[in-house]
């Protein structure tokens, strides 16, 4: 690809350059094409092209370059502006040529450019560079020496490791941190390879060196993990130390420990720690769910300082099982509200297959607070225990009955829904009515078979009292579906004014397109005028907010126009047409311009639709003429096109194009072309116009290349 020498916005060139990397470039057959591209890019580097072009050519060579490009790239390593660009290519071009070039450059460069070159050597993990890097490790420039140390760490072979270990004591203080970093990288590599003995030795070297605290921490972590079981004493030592950073390191490291060797030692660490630290160690124990010493966590939950107990109770939520149930129940009904709340939260989620079965098993014999708690748990854990819970509906204590109703709301199946329906229709105790309704709603909306559920609710409606009917209709509305809709539609046309009111209100809020014909029918035939209007507004709302083919939306609007007798609803319809611009909608809005009371709104709507449509398929002059806007006095006061501070005055252009219409047609559909150039390349621009129509001032702005239809000033 040839890159033009003109520098404007190279982002475009970069995009084009990379995007030439098409599927065919992957195929072997296109190797020749890639080679050609490489030649073109090399030619740019050899030319007197501006720096920008050379930079981008480097980026291109990162993709297309081979060893052929290396000499030209290498020449740029001494160029402060292009060195980093050249290394982008040199770092990824395969083969020894790049390595050779980087090493050679490192011999002659200094300062930052040398640092960068050494960094690239490190990224390429070039083992041939060790002798060079060993020398640079003792460079007087600490940045250079540090780069060499880290590069050797990345290479990580025996020679690098040896040189770095020796360097720990030998290099100046400023370089020691980087040498330690290099050592740790080498030790990690050895650890991964299984040579844990040498790895541990290196970590110890760093731990004993005069290096920054963070390096000591990293080495300590490594020393523990490399030793595996033999590292446990050191880990436990950290739990006892006064050094906060070391203690925190232990908390992190224990979570990484392989296998189960460390877990038996952790309870002792909890016991010996201060409460503040025990809290944290318990959390770390629980983050090892496979190996955690559960009895130890349970014991910590049962007794000891409160903050430790809270931590342990919380931990049981993740790692507990059925063996923790009785203890947690005891705490949950205990005197301390904070502990009780924590236990309740844990009980709701306590893992273990037997837990739910045991909760049900305890229900018949439980009393008081425990009974209530178990009922709550049935609901929270969604345990199928309807028969046991149903018994509690006869309990003399309202709070127990409420707990039972809530539990049933969370657990009953469709088959057992009648248990709740009967509580709504005829509660054993009137005080339970509200809870029963909420429970029935909770149960109904979670039923997978909603048509079956709606059928049961509809059937119940027939035999319910007036007060319950409203509740059932609301639940039906929440359930949704065909049966529910049909039931509400029937209710809306019943003879009962309360049902008419409830049902038309709920249908007006129905969030489904299926409600449209029902609402239209009601708008025509509802028993009272106010419900007709409510239904019509609901129908317009459906046309406004649901996704549907535009043809269908316009048909709905036409239907509504046919029914609407008041301008309020007609104006709402024009808003719908404006919001969802379409050619069909434009025709309808234009037609509405013929209605005297609607003419201003219909005209604004038609112009707005035409604007949104960009004039496509619209005879604007005819439209404006129909609106009586074919002979206006238009004055352009000021017009600017651009973005942010980059604005171009286009007043003269617009004045020239202005006519006796509130429409301005430019020479081209492109604003940039019409206004003689792009004032802000690559940025989203706007056209802002201040104008007067028939003496009234207006102001409007237009997205780039939009049709210019000026709104009539109010």
């Amino acid at each position, binding site marked *: 690809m040839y890159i033009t020498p003109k*520098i404007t916005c190279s982002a475009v060139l970069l995009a084009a350059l990379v*995007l030439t990397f098409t599927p065919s*470039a992957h195929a072997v057959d296109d190797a020749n094409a890639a080679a050609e591209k490489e030649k073109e890019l090399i030619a740019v580097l050899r030319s007197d092209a501006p720096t920008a072009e050379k930079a981008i050519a480097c980026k291109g060579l990162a993709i297309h370059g081979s060893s052929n490009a290396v000499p030209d790239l290498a020449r740029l390593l001494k160029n402060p502006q292009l060195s980093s660009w050249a290394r982008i290519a040199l770092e990824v071009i395969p083969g020894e040529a790049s390595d050779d070039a980087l090493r050679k450059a490192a011999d002659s460069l200094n300062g930052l450019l040398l640092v960068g070159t050494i960094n690239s050597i490190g990224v390429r993990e070039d083992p041939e560079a060790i002798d060079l890097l060993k020398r640079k490790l003792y460079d007087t420039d600490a940045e250079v020496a540090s780069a060499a140390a880290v590069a050797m760490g990345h290479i990580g072979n025996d020679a690098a490791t040896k040189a770095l270990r020796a360097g720990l004591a030998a290099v100046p203080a400023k370089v020691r941190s980087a040498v330690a970093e290099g050592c740790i990288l080498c030790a990690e590599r050895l650890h991964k390879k299984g040579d844990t003995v040498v790895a541990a030795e290196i970590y110890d070297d760093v731990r004993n060196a005069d290096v920054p605290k963070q390096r000591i921490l990293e080495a300590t972590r490594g020393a523990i993990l490399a030793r595996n079981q033999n590292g446990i004493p050191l880990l436990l030592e950290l739990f006892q130390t006064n050094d906060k950073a070391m203690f925190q390191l232990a908390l992190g490291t224990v979570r990484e420990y392989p296998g189960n060797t460390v877990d038996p030692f952790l309870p002792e660490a909890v016991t010996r720690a201060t409460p503040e630290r025990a809290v944290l160690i318990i959390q770390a124990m629980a983050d090892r769910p496979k190996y955690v010493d559960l009895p130890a966590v349970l014991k910590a939950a049962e007794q000891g300082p409160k903050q430790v107990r809270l931590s342990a109770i919380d931990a049981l939520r993740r790692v507990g099982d059925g063996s923790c149930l009785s203890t947690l129940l005891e705490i949950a009904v205990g005197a301390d509200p904070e502990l009780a709340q924590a236990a309740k939260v844990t009980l709701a989620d306590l893992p273990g297959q037997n837990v739910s079965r045991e909760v049900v098993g305890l229900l018949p014999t439980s009393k008081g607070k425990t009974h209530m708690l178990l009922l709550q748990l049935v609901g929270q854990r969604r345990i199928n225990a309807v028969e046991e819970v149903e018994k509690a509906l006869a309990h003399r204590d309202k709070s127990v009955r409420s707990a039972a109703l809530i539990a049933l709301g969370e657990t009953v199946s469709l088959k057992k829904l009648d248990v709740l329906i009967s509580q709504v229709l005829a509660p054993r105790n009137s005080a339970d009515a509200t809870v029963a309704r909420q429970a029935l709603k909770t149960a109904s909306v979670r039923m997978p078979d909603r048509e079956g559920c709606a059928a049961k609710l509809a059937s119940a409606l027939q035999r319910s009292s007036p007060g319950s009917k409203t509740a059932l209709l609301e639940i039906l509305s929440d359930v949704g579906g065909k049966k529910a809709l049909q039931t509400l539609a029937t209710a809306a046309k019943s003879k009962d004014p309360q049902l008419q009111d409830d049902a038309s209100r709920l249908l007006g809020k129905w969030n489904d397109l299926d409600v449209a014909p029902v609402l239209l029918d009601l708008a025509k035939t509802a028993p009272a005028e106010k419900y007709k209007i409510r239904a019509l507004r609901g129908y317009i709302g459906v046309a406004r907010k649901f996704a549907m083919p535009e043809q269908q939306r316009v048909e709905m609007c036409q239907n509504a126009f046919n029914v609407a007798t008041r301008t309020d609803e007609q104006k709402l319809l024009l808003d719908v047409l404006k919001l969802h611009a379409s050619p069909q909608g434009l025709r309808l809005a234009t037609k509405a311009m013929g209605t005297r009371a609607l003419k201003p709104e219909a005209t604004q709507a038609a112009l707005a639709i035409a604007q949104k449509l960009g004039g496509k398929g619209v005879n604007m002059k005819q439209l404006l003429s129909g609106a009586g806007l074919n002979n206006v006095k238009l004055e352009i006061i000021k017009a600017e096109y651009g973005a942010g501070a980059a604005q171009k005055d286009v007043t003269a252009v617009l004045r020239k194009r202005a006519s006796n219409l509130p429409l301005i047609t430019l020479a081209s559909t492109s604003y940039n072309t019409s206004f003689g150039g792009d004032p802000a390349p690559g940025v989203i621009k706007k056209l802002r116009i201040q104008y007067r129509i028939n003496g009234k001032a207006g102001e409007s702005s237009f997205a780039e290349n939009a049709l210019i239809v000026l709104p009539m000033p109010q």
Partner: protein
Amino acid sequence: MPKKTTQYSRRRFLKSAVSAAGAAVVAPTIIPGSAMGLNGAVPPSERIVVGGIGIGRRGGYDLGCFLQQNDVQFVAVADIKQKRRGEVKKIVDDHHGNENCDTYRDFREVLDRTDIDAVLIATGPNWHATAAMTAAKAGKDMYCEKPVTKNISQSLILADTMRRTSRVFQAGTQRRNLPHFAFACELARTGKLGKLTKVYAHPAGMQAMMSGWLVPEEQPDKDVVDWDMYLGPAAWRPFNKKLLDGFNFEKGGGFVGAFRGGGVLEWGSHCVDLCQWAVDDCLPPVEYNARKDGELMARYENGTQLIFREKGWIPLGSCPVRFEGETGWVEAGDSGKMVLSSPELLAGREVEEIGGYPATFHVRDFLDCVKTRRQPKGNAQAACNAHIACHAANIALLLDRQVKFDNATNTFTDDAAANRLRSEALREPWRL
């Protein structure tokens, strides 16, 4: 934080779906506040001392989330822009009622301070990974805005560095700490949807472009704008204000647009991240296909598909994700709402509806983890996997063909072109 407890019906979004909402569920916490010593007043010994790096528009929001926390003491800010340094200092000082927030041009001076425990990194994406790793090596924990990395190589090194340095790293993927997203991911992860077949992410743009070299402009004084520090690890180019204020400068490995777009990375670092959580934070997909019919399909080792798609979403707000299994599905978005294939999936759970993707809970998660040394939700390994998925998808988009990624070697299989795009040299003196 406003808590919605609206109960609404299944037909709210789809005929066959259920929306989940419910009574208040407290924000995700690790352990009770009293156990952490967070009951109101926090003793100085328990405070987390925080410094800021590059606090602009997004960072300002994050800063607000930090300052809301009783146990945070914000003490310093570093920024290459003098104006911003002053603005952030004023916010912090006003909040703390003192004049103690120190300002720096070079963030390394913040890292040199031994009194600072953690840093908030909210620079442009060009700096995120490099600053994060520099901070880790200086012994700081960090909350780092997304996208976290510029390429696959940086993603891998980031995870390695955080592990090796034992630092707490939280990517700015705050949706991991929002209840409805967490619940949706949990359904997928725990098999409640049956065997997972497809996870969908909304990339909000699948253009692959590069940052550029714009027309040189007069470079401001270094104290006003430190252009060299702004470029940082990015290859050199002359000063241009558009690049300086370019939100997407050098986002996405040097081949993402200078002015707009961001490939799949800008939103993918959220949406794909959630998909990764849904697949239990497993290793990233092994196959990425060319875009077809507006969708890019990637495939995990176990056959589950990760699909980047622009259209076909239930209107649940920005950043939607959808997880499909053999027996059910769930979709969630930034409105705070989710839609389920069956109400049974709720299983009695109440999932709080928090819209507007606040970062408060995510910041709290980070601060808790600084104390407990637990891995936060947006930890480095999770971020690494999600970002690799995004970078690899961007490479497939760029090459306009299928690429295959080997998670054992972290290379593309038999694909020199794709492998060359895994990394990019850093400008001197920066290294990872």
